[in-house]
């Protein structure tokens, strides 16, 4: 199994600012994903973080708004740019040892934008 940590665990931010969330995995994983869980909603995939190359974004999510980095097999960052109150959500990092392997989740980052 993989243990995934995220920083920060929560934050309160002002409109128009940006926040970078870090995700660290205790072992090498092939796949890393970023999800969003808005209040009362299910988890929605933002993008797949690819090592050393641009992330693969889902429909409705763009790189300018959610830039993602993944410099190695155990670390990734998600930036929420030019935030608005609609970005208030829980952001979750997930990793899997293989494309068909079990997905493990981080504890989430709870973001509130005022």
């Amino acid at each position, binding site marked *: 199994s993989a243990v995934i940590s995220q920083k920060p665990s929560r934050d309160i931010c002002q409109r128009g600012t940006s926040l970078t969330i870090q995700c660290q995995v205790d072992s090498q994983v092939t*796949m890393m*994903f970023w999800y969003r869980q808005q209040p009362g*909603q*299910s*988890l*929605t*995939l933002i*993008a*797949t973080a690819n090592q050393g190359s641009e992330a*693969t974004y*889902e429909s409705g999510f763009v790189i300018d708004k959610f830039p993602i980095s993944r410099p190695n097999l155990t670390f990734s960052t998600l930036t929420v740019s030019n935030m608005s109150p609609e970005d208030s959500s829980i952001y*979750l990092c*997930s990793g*899997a040892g*293989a*494309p*068909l*392997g*079990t*997905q*493990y*989740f*981080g*504890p*989430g980052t709870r973001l509130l934008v005022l």
Partner: protein
Amino acid sequence: AQRVTQPEKLLSVFKGAPVELKCNYSYSGSPELFWYVQYSRQRLQLLLRHISRESIKGFTADLNKGETSFHLKKPFAQEEDSAMYYCALRAYGGSQGNLIFGKGTKLSVKP
């Protein structure tokens, strides 16, 4: 389109009663289905996956392709089973390996 539906937002049962959390899916290919659980103040974790055909914490789930369902069942609910339960479908294609989640069902087991 790929979709997971959990019709119940909240399910409340008494301790010792049977529980069934419903999950239906829409997927054109051969599905891989999971149940994830999130206990209070804990992270999301895998409960079981259909290909394992195992029972975890007394829970089982059978994939019914004819009814496109993957309901989670437990014959005798315990108070510690109270949690959010998410059904998920593994999708393929542009985002290989990612999961599509239902909206979740909050299970409350009363003493």
